[in-house]
């Protein structure tokens, strides 16, 4: 193991910074204990099923609809977050205003709040008798207990991912580029789309991917606002819980495994796009 790593880093010879083997060892142990072994155990439990059984479970009408609900809502939520995340990060980095620190700190609240609390609070706000839901109800739009409600909960839990991915990149971005572009006669819009946006695009993708993956697997906050009607507003993680409630562990992990694979493929795809785009922007 060590040999390989050293080989990879061998371009510059020996490691200049001490403690490499120790910190790498800790990293691998942690990753193994916390990520790889639990994930492997999911695959192992699911492998108790025959391929036919596995196929039957994950193609069940309710399960497929659960995947579609979770995926489509998470996708919309991640897209919304990407747009508003850029705006939020932009405001926080580029402008000075009173209480900026507090606003900045608030971005992280969705991380800190237990998801069930978030779900209950969002639901009571967005039901047709709630503060916000009441306004929309007058226009005939129902939010809570529909897919709009699910999407809103996913926007809530996903926004920090996008903002926190973009912020450091914007902070590092040198004003000189914009000034140069302006002097050369570029319009403001052109400066944003041709100079700034390509720089923050990879970071936005990272945030998008993380928010999407989080949304697909989200249970705690969504389950309260979802309505959970089979084939309509039933999310995939709820079906996992429902299988567990029936003591069908293998079935539950089968559904989970597909979710995991979807999330993994999305993150992989995003990484590939990033590598491609960073070739252009960094060279």
């Amino acid at each position, binding site marked *: 193991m060590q040999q390989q790593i050293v080989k990879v880093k061998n371009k510059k010879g020996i490691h200049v910074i001490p403690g490499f083997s120790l910190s790498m060892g800790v*990293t691998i142990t*942690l*990753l193994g204990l*916390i*990520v790889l072994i639990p994930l492997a155990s999911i695959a192992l439990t699911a492998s108790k099923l025959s391929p036919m059984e596995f196929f039957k479970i994950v193609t*069940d*009408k*309710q399960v497929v609809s659960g995947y579609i609900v979770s995926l489509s809502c998470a996708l919309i939520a991640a897209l919304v977050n990407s747009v508003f995340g850029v705006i939020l990060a932009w405001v926080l980095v580029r402008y000075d205003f009173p209480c900026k620190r507090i606003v900045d700190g608030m971005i992280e609240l969705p991380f800190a709040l237990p998801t069930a609390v978030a779900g*209950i609070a969002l*639901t*009571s706000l967005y*039901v047709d*008798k*709630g503060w916000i839901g009441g306004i929309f109800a007058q226009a005939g739009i129902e939010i*809570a*207990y529909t897919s709009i409600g699910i999407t809103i909960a996913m926007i809530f839990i996903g926004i920090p*991912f996008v903002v926190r*991915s973009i912020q*450091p990149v914007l902070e590092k971005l040198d004003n000189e580029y914009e000034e140069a572009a302006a002097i050369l006669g570029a319009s403001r819009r052109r400066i944003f789309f041709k100079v700034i946006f390509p720089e923050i695009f*990879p*970071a936005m*993708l*990272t945030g998008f*991917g*993380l928010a999407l993956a989080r949304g697909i697997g989200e249970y705690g906050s969504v*389950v*309260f606002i979802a*309505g*959970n*009607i*089979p*084939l309509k507003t039933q999310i995939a993680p*709820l079906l996992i*819980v*429902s299988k*567990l*409630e*029936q*003591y*069908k562990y293998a*079935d539950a992990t089968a559904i989970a495994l597909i979710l995991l694979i979807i999330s993994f493929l999305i*993150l992989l795809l995003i*990484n590939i796009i*990033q*590598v491609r785009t*960073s070739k252009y922007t960094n060279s």
Partner: protein
Amino acid sequence: MKGILSKKLLALSVTGLVLGASIFTGCGNNTEEGTAGEAKKVEITNVSYDPTREFYAAYNEEFKKYWKEEKGEDVEIVASHGGSGSQARSVIEGNEADVVTLALARDITAIENEGLIESGWIDQFEHNSSPYTSTIVFLVRKGNEKGIKDWGDLVKDGVGVITPNPKTSGGACWNFLAAWAYADKEFNGDEAKIKDFVTKLYKNVLVLDSGARGSTSTFVENGQGDVLLAWENEAFLTLKEKPNEYEMITPSISILAEPSVAVVDSVAKERGTEEVASAYLEYLYSDAAQKLIGENFYRPTNETILKDFSKTFNLNMNMVTINDFGGWDKAYNDYFNDGAIFDQIYTAPAQ
């Protein structure tokens, strides 16, 4: 850019570790204390389900007094509450419970199937090991605008029903079976008509929450629906809190919900708490405990004490039991298993 992603992942895994560690230490504490105390002190853990929280808080004080007088021993009772099914799973996965007091016999049977509880537990205590019972009633908003009197009114157009999903909440199986029992009587066992009835009923369900407490908050806090199908004791608690906003309706027929209790033999043996654990459950049948049960809106199984509460409970309801459905295993297979009747309500093509 890849660096950002991997840094985030690392940060996440570190947070996970910290959280994990704190959970471990949190759980470790209570078991150690029990064995460390040299004085006559014993600790037992009661793993129960959500709506018994208030009752067991009161009962534990009562039992402590009793045990001190009887044996001169201090007993410390750790109570854990959650969804009945997930509580059963936590015991299966190694949560060291001396006794379990759950919503369904089925959840205890699941623990028995793992070899933690000896078979025959259901006959260890009186009344199928159910010291208290409850039933399914309707909670409606004050004034009962939709005029809901019985199950038949729930399938009418425009009536919004709130009830949890029996596939994620074991307790909600009772709701479904109670509706089934009504239709069974109404249509003289004509299965097609009964199915049609429950299908209509569940089509009127606006929100299918994952648990009973979730349904209560959907109905009470968020103002959804016209009627909540609720456990009688939960309905009483809501009435006690907000007497001017809700009314309780007892339908003509319902089901006698029998939450079961059992000693987790393997854990009690290992911790040497067998005697106190069975005494803890046995004492639930004492007059004092039965009174406490009634005061907490569960129905006492002791007939004489139940009569003392005749002002509280409607004792003239027509009740079926799980045995009318052939026991839990059969009932679960027939109605709630994947692809069984409950699933068909949603997946069957519309007529």
